[in-house]
């Protein structure tokens, strides 16, 4: 009796579980094989599948509130399309711009398509469209740092030869600085000023930071803008003094010895006063150097020399005996102190490099 019941249970197990399982697995295997066959017959082009959808305005309104999800999918397709075109021999990127615009029409706040779309388009040389897309993104996401960053890069690289490129790059560097925190904030404020000064646009720098001080809402940003304005004014003073020196030497027919001569000759009213304690001094070539402006250069030199001492100590197990030991041909190629009347000093006992008055 028990044996019969066990056989019956076994049959039930076979009939109700094993057989359906086998049929299911076999079915999946068969349908999978058919799918593989179908794929072989017709090459799939998922990108075009998306492109043939009706225009993105209609799409946006008839997604049942899922326009963001569609934007995510569209962006995924755009990335795939870009990669595919990039790897193809005949890379034309014909649909790229349209795909990026469609993605952002579906989700106007989505930063990545603006950002990477801008990078892709700039990469294929479509700078104007790249800029326009990045600008559109900036209108929708005014607090984003990524978009000014890409615009800044566009003007520093692709469009660097265009007139005023440095000025525009400087403007975007300032925008980046306004939007980020941490160490790089200061670096971008400095960069925005240096880009203007690099092109001798001292007046533009003063004007730009004066406006920035007036318009900054954030106290930290305003303080930074004030600091940059102060440095730009120092640069302007250096420029004015150098012009006065050239005029003075032409007038008196000899080289200037001290800046006070400019005051005596009535070319300037007084040597400008720096509230931060900076001084204006003449270098060997009779060019004016401001000690505050020279400070970052000195800092850089000291850090670099300190690094070299550290490397030497690691390799030799002791401090170098002299400058020449860690900076071969020091006199010829070694760094000079950026401020006239001062020089670099090295202490072999402590291994510290600093500076002193001559």
């Amino acid at each position, binding site marked *: 009796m028990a044996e019969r019941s066990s056989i019956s249970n076994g049959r039930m197990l076979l009939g109700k579980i094993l057989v359906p399982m086998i049929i299911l697995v076999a079915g999946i295997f068969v349908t999978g094989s058919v799918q593989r066959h179908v794929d072989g017959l017709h090459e799939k082009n998922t990108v075009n599948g998306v492109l043939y959808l009706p225009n993105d305005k209609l799409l946006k309104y008839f997604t049942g*509130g899922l326009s963001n999800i569609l934007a*995510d999918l569209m962006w995924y397709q755009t990335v795939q399309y870009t990669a595919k075109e990039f790897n193809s021999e005949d890379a034309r990127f014909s649909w790229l711009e349209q795909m990026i615009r469609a993605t952002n029409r579906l989700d106007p706040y989505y930063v990545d398509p603006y950002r990477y779309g801008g990078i892709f388009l700039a990469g294929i040389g479509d700078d104007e469209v790249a800029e326009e897309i990045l600008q559109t993104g900036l209108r929708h996401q005014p607090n984003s740092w990524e978009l000014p960053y890409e615009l800044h890069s566009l003007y520093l690289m692709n469009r660097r030869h265009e007139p005023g490129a440095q000025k525009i790059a400087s403007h975007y560097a300032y925008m980046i600085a306004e939007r980020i925190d941490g160490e790089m904030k200061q670096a971008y404020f400095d960069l925005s000023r240096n880009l203007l000064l690099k092109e001798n646009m001292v007046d533009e720098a003063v004007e730009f930071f004066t406006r920035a001080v007036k318009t900054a809402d954030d106290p930290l940003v305003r303080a930074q803008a004030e600091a940059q304005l102060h440095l730009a004014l120092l640069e302007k003073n250096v420029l004015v003094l150098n012009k006065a020196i050239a005029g003075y030497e032409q007038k008196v027919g000899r080289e200037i010895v001290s800046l006070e001569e400019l005051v005596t000759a009535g070319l300037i009213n007084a040597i400008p006063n720096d509230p931060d304690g900076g001084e204006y001094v003449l270098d060997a070539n009779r060019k004016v150097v401001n000690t505050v402006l020279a400070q970052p250069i000195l800092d850089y030199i000291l850090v670099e020399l300190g690094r070299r001492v550290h490397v030497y100590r690691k390799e030799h197990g002791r401090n170098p005996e002299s400058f020449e030991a860690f900076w071969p041909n020091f006199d010829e190629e070694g760094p000079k102190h950026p401020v006239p009347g001062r020089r670099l000093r090295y202490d072999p006992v402590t291994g510290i490099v600093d500076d002193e008055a001559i």
Partner: protein
Amino acid sequence: MRIRAIAANTYREAIRDKVLYLLLIFGIISIVSSRILGYMSIGDELKIIADISLASISIFGALIAVFVGTNLVYKEIDKRTIYTIISRPIDRYEFILGKYLGLITLLAVTTLVMGIISALYIVMMGGSLGVIYFEAVLLIYWKLLLVTAFSVLLSSLTSPVLGAIIVLSAYVFGHGTGILIDIPVDMQGTYMESLLAAIYFVLPNLSNFDIWKEYANGIEISHTYVVWNMVYGALYTALLLYLATLVFENKDV
């Protein structure tokens, strides 16, 4: 008291519905699998995770509201259980309200479950929530209140299949009413512009409740905006429930 009894009964009945669990499981699977698309794309993975997670709450919540909601009254009439209820000293509006409250309690539970799972998942993936996340989930629920009211209305009027088709179509169109005021330039200034604008203000605008897009993109939304949308949703829902009551009171059962 009578409304509460009907609501409690509706809730108990609906929570036993297998469709509910199926939809809930699909919703949770969507939330958890959202990372796949984020992983395959370039850029902010968290944005895509947040998009899909909150969209899942919205979509699967709406499906529950539609499929359970359109059955609510119809089922009672079809199975003739309605006679045992309306033969008692109970007003018909109490019956409709009780049914509605039972279903929205169920939706509150499902939205809460999906909302918590989604929140945990976003935080686990390194994202942050903020007040706007909870406001986004609250507004999704508020949208579901409106959709449920429409489902209950349709449930008093027609069969569940037809009702579900109508409500789902209204759900899609309700998110796209913006097109009525986003007209081409050559239509501007014509009588058509005024007509479309009038239709726009009459139809429910469900996209009002979708601030999860702003959340996913890190855009700030004022609390006032959220409150006014809740007021809008509450008014529209009340209107639909009133209509449902009217229809049911005049129904020959």
